């Protein structure tokens, strides 16, 4: 491997509070900062979804106190159509970018990738610090749109053109709101580009002696693959955001066609292309959903292996499948645009890779599920959430069969079927991955255990609740329930309103269950049971062989040497049925790599 000694003294532990906890160069602190940001963002996003759900179920009912958030958006607490869309846009943007991208990838990846490869830190700590703080500023910019101008943009997290580019004539929030949105997302892209750069170089260049690529744990592989996607996907979205801002402030017309008439006024734009935005956005957007879910696949596999006490049926197959997902994710983005007015031949061309991508997804699930066969499965909060992840990933994944086909998409496009699909497969499944990772790594990050009883309660309510919320979304979609409606005024939607009420009740309860998690997290952080040792789960990878919490340079000045494949379980060693990657002990393996 590489000369790690050269990095030995590249930075000394900081002493001041600011350098230690605020502008820290330590990847572990940055990881925790990302986690905290994702936590705040997740709860903001969840509260927004509560308001939306209440409004959808009981449309003209005043929500007490909502007028305090926005006097014009909710006069007397009754939500206006535009405020619904504004909350919806913010919910989607916050969740996709600031939760699903930051928590499994930037937060856990930052904390554990360097440790798992045996490095002291990332190769570019200043970039790493910048990555977080740019993302933090991006979040503040996005939140500021709640109080500036006439509120956040109402164009949805996909911000379709030309609604996003014609300015405030198109509705409240479409002026300043869009500029703030595009600024925030542009900054976010910068943050993730810097992060991806660090992740890739960490994986390729900072592995310790003995850590060959195939000896990397599945989590490290997942983060590496994700960062490769991030580097290319965010590099496309960022310029697209800049072009939108230029359409607003510089009088350009990248995304606005000629002769558009709004409020009886011909708009002063000409010559732009509406579909250009969709191409740019989905070229980012589809890899983005894999950016959200691939780290989850890695985390869940990592946790299940530890709790099954045996490796996955094939380490390499999982790695190649995740790699195939990443490559294919760039060839399928047109399936978001089947009915967009793009050439109908392109729809067919995008349909086939989309159907093909089910093959690596199926392989991942099959390998995970069939690895359970003959295992010694331990049930705890982390493994429950991992198993729940698989169940959700399958449930949300099979609806992809429908949406991959342009002919069926004619029926289901822009309905709640799509909403159900992506909430299950990249929303709930990815959240379950985050929860599993939290319960699993919490003792390493804090030196304390999370409360298992509360963790299991949290799991049961979330698992059953998530199905109650998102399964009916599919049924609504089959009946043609259009998404992004602030109110259901069409005749054919009237019989569906009771279903929406059921979903709302389920969403409120499931949301409330997340408060259990919040309590557990905060309480355990300060008053939880102390972790019994450095390796409470009897795991093998490098993060469990160092002190708890890990010292500033991760391994206390030593450079670990790796002797084994990452998941040596089911062996007879001096410590039990496993041998750690750093242990020089030679053991006979019961189940060898295929």
């Amino acid at each position, binding site marked *: 491997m590489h000369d790690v000694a050269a990095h030995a003294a590249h930075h000394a532990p900081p002493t001041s509070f600011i350098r230690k906890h605020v502008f820290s160069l330590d990847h572990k602190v940055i990881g925790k900062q990302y986690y905290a940001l994702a936590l705040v963002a997740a709860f903001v996003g969840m509260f927004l979804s509560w308001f939306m759900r209440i409004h959808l179920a009981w449309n003209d009912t*005043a929500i007490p106190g909502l007028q305090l958030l926005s006097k014009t958006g909710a*006069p007397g607490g009754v*939500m*206006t*159509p535009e405020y619904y869309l504004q909350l919806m846009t913010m919910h989607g943007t916050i969740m996709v970018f600031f939760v699903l991208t930051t928590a499994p990838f930037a937060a856990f990846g930052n904390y554990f990738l360097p440790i798992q490869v045996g490095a002291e830190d990332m190769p570019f700590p200043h970039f790493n610090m910048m990555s977080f703080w740019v993302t933090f500023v991006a979040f503040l910019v996005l939140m500021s749109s709640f109080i500036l101008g006439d509120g956040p943009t109402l164009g949805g997290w996909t911000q379709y053109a030309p609604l996003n580019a014609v300015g*405030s004539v198109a509705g*409240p929030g479409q002026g300043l709101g869009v500029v703030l949105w595009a600024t925030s997302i542009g900054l976010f892209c910068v943050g993730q580009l810097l992060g991806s750069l660090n992740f890739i170089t960490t994986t390729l260049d900072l592995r310790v002696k003995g850590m060959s690529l195939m000896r990397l744990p599945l989590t490290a592989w997942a983060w590496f693959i994700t960062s490769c996607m991030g580097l290319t996907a965010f590099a496309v979205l960022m310029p697209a955001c800049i072009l939108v801002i230029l359409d607003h402030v510089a009088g350009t017309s990248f995304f606005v066609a000629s002769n558009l008439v709004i409020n009886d006024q011909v708009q002063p734009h000409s010559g732009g292309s509406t579909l250009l935005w969709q191409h740019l956005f989905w070229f980012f957007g589809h890899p983005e959903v894999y950016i959200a879910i691939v780290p989850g696949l890695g985390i869940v596999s990592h946790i299940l292996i530890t709790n099954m006490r045996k490796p996955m049926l094939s380490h390499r197959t999982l790695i190649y499948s995740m790699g195939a997902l990443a490559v294919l994710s760039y060839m399928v983005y047109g399936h978001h645009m089947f009915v967009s007015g793009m050439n109908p031949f392109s729809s067919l061309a995008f349909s086939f890779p989309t159907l093909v991508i089910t093959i690596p997804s199926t392989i991942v699930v099959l390998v995970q599920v069939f690895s359970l066969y003959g295992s010694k499965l331990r049930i705890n909060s982390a493994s429950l959430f991992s198993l729940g992840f698989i169940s959700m990933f399958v449930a949300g994944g099979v609806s992809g069969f429908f949406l991959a086909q342009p002919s069926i998409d004619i029926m289901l496009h822009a309905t709640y079927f799509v909403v159900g699909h992506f909430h299950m497969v990249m929303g709930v499944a990815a959240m379950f991955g985050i929860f599993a990772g939290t319960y699993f790594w919490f003792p390493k990050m804090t030196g304390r255990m999370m409360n298992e009883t509360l963790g299991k309660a949290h799991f049961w309510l979330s698992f059953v609740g998530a199905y109650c919320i998102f399964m009916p979304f599919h049924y609504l979609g089959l009946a043609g329930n259009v998404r992004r409606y602030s109110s259901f*005024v069409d005749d054919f939607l009237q019989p569906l309103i009771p279903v929406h009420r059921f979903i709302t009740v389920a969403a409120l309860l499931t949301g409330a269950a997340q408060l259990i998690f919040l309590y557990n997290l905060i309480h355990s952080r300060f008053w939880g049971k102390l972790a019994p040792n450095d390796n409470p789960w009897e795991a093998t990878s490098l993060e469990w062989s160092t002190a708890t919490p890990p010292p500033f340079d991760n391994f206390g000045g030593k450079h670990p040497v790796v002797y084994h494949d990452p998941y040596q379980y089911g062996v007879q060693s001096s410590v039990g049925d496993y041998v750690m990657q750093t242990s020089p002990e030679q053991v006979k393996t019961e189940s060898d790599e295929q």
Partner: protein
Amino acid sequence: MRRKPILIALLTLLAGSSLMFAGTVSGKVTYTGTPAHQKAIDMSKEPSCAKQHATPISTETVVTGANNALENVVVYISAGAPDEGQVPTQAITYTQKGCQYLPHVLPMHVNQEFEILNDDQTSHNIHPLPKVNIEWNKSQPPGSPPIKEKYDKAEFIEVKCNIHPWMHGYFAVLKTSHYDVSKEGGDFKLPNLPPGKYTLTAWHEKYGTQTADVTITGNETKDVNFTFKATAY
């Protein structure tokens, strides 16, 4: 500050004395030619509104009455009147009912507060399109409180509902409290004018403006009539 009550007393006296010699301008607004055909409005998109109209209502760009009367013309004192700067205190309302603005043209004084009400079972969106005042765009779901607004610059402002594109009206924000809108029969009346020389302006949303000079010398009623030339398209 102490001078203020005295000032008000003086003003009241002045206003009172001028009232004793108040003149009135009244008249009729008519048209010549053939006005454009007003299309019937199909509200089938909003059934709760459509069923409020037994026969479909028509557009209100040009509303005419018997004997070539022209309605919805704002007649006001555009010059010569002492701008009292007194904002009328009575509340004026702009009601959305049956997906129609009542009244079609709402005259008001600069800085006068007005209320917008939603009498329908559907959300409305009120989007006035001012050129010199500050633009806003607000929705009003059924059951939400009245929207209270005012404008601080004189202007004729087109009002649209973004949810129901056929809904169309005007705010006439005026720098005087002497105004009227021609009613059925084209009649208007501006009472309580103190003696003086005035310019009277009549404004119609499609046919533009006309002016007339009038002098009030005492307690009298002066007749001023306006005639607009209508076009078929």
